[in-house]
């Protein structure tokens, strides 16, 4: 077991080191694509960290992403960069804590639409504040951060997220979440503080999303609510994680990477019929891969006996 962990760790470190070299390729497009892949990998993984075990489908990704981006928009030119990231993370955590405590009693579609409404509310309030109080809408972010810096930060965050996810899965919290995912009533009777566990996880996941928003913000120079709080991000992340398979830590990556590449390929090859082709491929995936890419891999890796264990093991 330990040997396996060590081996896996070594492989992960090697992969990380190799990935860290991407900016050295000197091709800004590959770098941009890598940034995009990392962005969605982190977002979808963070999404899956909470929604996978608890099965709450959240559309609040954009809310946290936007909070991060806006923190940079407001403070990016004033404070040193690490401090900005720290403040963004703290803000994200606070918002997530409040939201988590107030909303986790909702279930099913009510939670889904609530989180969407929440995103819109935050966006409307930011707009209203900017319009009426600061009287600027659209802030300029001129900070001294290169594309490679963004990439490396995202890569570090990706590594941190996977490490965190791995640690959580091995921790008592991770086990508690698996029990909650199986049967929340049983979990409570086993002495699990289910509210705490869920809010803690929601907060962790949201903080990561906030950091992604903060890290990405310098890439666009200009931040306005419609850019920072673009609700498409929520949908894309949700779809990626679901397609990949949110029930495993590494599941969402399997959705994020191919879908990002697919988007890229289709929008490059078929700029005019992009949407139609995308829609068709999408439907095909839904019909062909009912349990996501992770489910497909699991199915392939299990023997013909058909004992497909559908849920995660630590």
């Amino acid at each position, binding site marked *: 077991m330990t040997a396996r962990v060590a081996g896996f760790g070594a492989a992960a470190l090697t992969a990380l080191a190799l990935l860290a070299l991407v900016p050295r390729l000197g091709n800004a497009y590959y770098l941009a694509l890598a940034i995009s892949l990392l962005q969605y990998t982190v977002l979808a993984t963070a999404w899956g960290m909470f929604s996978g075990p608890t099965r709450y489908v959240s559309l609040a990704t954009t809310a946290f992403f936007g909070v991060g981006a806006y923190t940079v928009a407001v403070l990016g030119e004033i404070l040193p960069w690490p401090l900005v990231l720290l403040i963004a993370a703290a803000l994200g955590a606070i918002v997530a804590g409040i939201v988590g405590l107030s909303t986790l009693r909702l279930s099913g579609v009510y939670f889904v639409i609530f989180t969407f409404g929440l995103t819109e509310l935050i966006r409307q309030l930011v707009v209203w504040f900017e319009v009426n109080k600061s009287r600027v809408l659209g802030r300029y972010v001129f900070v001294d951060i290169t594309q490679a810096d963004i990439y490396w930060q995202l890569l570090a965050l990706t590594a941190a997220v996977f490490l965190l996810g791995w640690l959580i899965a091995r921790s008592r919290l991770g086990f508690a979440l*698996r029990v909650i995912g199986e049967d929340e*009533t*049983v*979990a*409570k*009777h086993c*002495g*699990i503080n289910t509210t705490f566990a869920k809010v803690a996880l929601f907060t962790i996941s949201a903080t990561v999303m906030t950091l992604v928003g903060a890290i990405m913000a310098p890439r666009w120079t200009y931040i306005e609510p419609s850019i920072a709080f673009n609700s498409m991000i929520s949908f894309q992340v949700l779809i990626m994680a679901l397609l990949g398979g949110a029930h495993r830590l590494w599941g969402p990556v399997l959705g994020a990477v191919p879908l990002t590449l697919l988007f890229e390929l289709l929008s490059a090859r078929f700029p005019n019929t992009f949407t139609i082709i995308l829609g068709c491929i999408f439907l095909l995936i839904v019909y062909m891969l009912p349990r996501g890419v992770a489910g497909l891999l699991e199915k392939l890796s299990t023997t013909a006996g058909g004992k497909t264990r559908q*849920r995660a093991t630590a």
Partner: protein
Amino acid sequence: MSQGSGTPVLTINGLRRAFGGLVAVNDLSFAVAQGEIMGLLGPNGSGKTTALNLISGVLRPDAGTIRLMGQNIAGLASYRIARLGLARTFQLVRVLDGMDCRENIKAGLAFQRPHLSAADAEVRIGALLDRVGLAGHDRRPAADLTYIDRKRLELARALAAKPRLLLLDEWLAGLNPSELAIGIDLIRSLRADGITIVLVEHVMSAVRALCDRCIVMSSGRKIAEGATADVLSDAAVVKAYLGGVAADA
């Protein structure tokens, strides 16, 4: 109130809970002494399961107190009650299908205070599997177990927490006669460990074999309480529960 020996583990006073207009538990009071096995009887829908849900914190009582080892736990969250030493099984057996047997039991003990070391936990899990008759099934997925083994696993999970009070909701239902005998012995042995038990059960032979005392509920109210034999021959009980056929066992 208590007829058993020692201090009451559970004392319930004036417990009430209504759903809309339907009063499911109405002014229920009773006490369970240390080491006692108490039967909670009554027709389906008489409020037994609601009472268990109130005690274990699934539901919040409208009125009344529930004392576990002297501490009022009425309205406390389930997980807190569980950590105070209460464990239960469910009428429709609930095991964690996505996990193996070992993990199912681990769920029962991992969140209790103080935390066990990993090694101690493994030892306890092994002992529990042994005890309920699931030795050697550690890595077997719970979903693959038969009905009776699922029941065993659920009990092992409840026992993992070393509870002071154990609530068994029709745990013996659906067992064949030989399994029933094993089950009765198992429950009896728990008492020897100092576990106090509240048993909701329809299998009368088991009630007679196990329970020191019984309470009978009907339409949310307690209609009888006393030694098992007395209660089962009580006219009101016979009318309400045994369906108008007098029992003179």
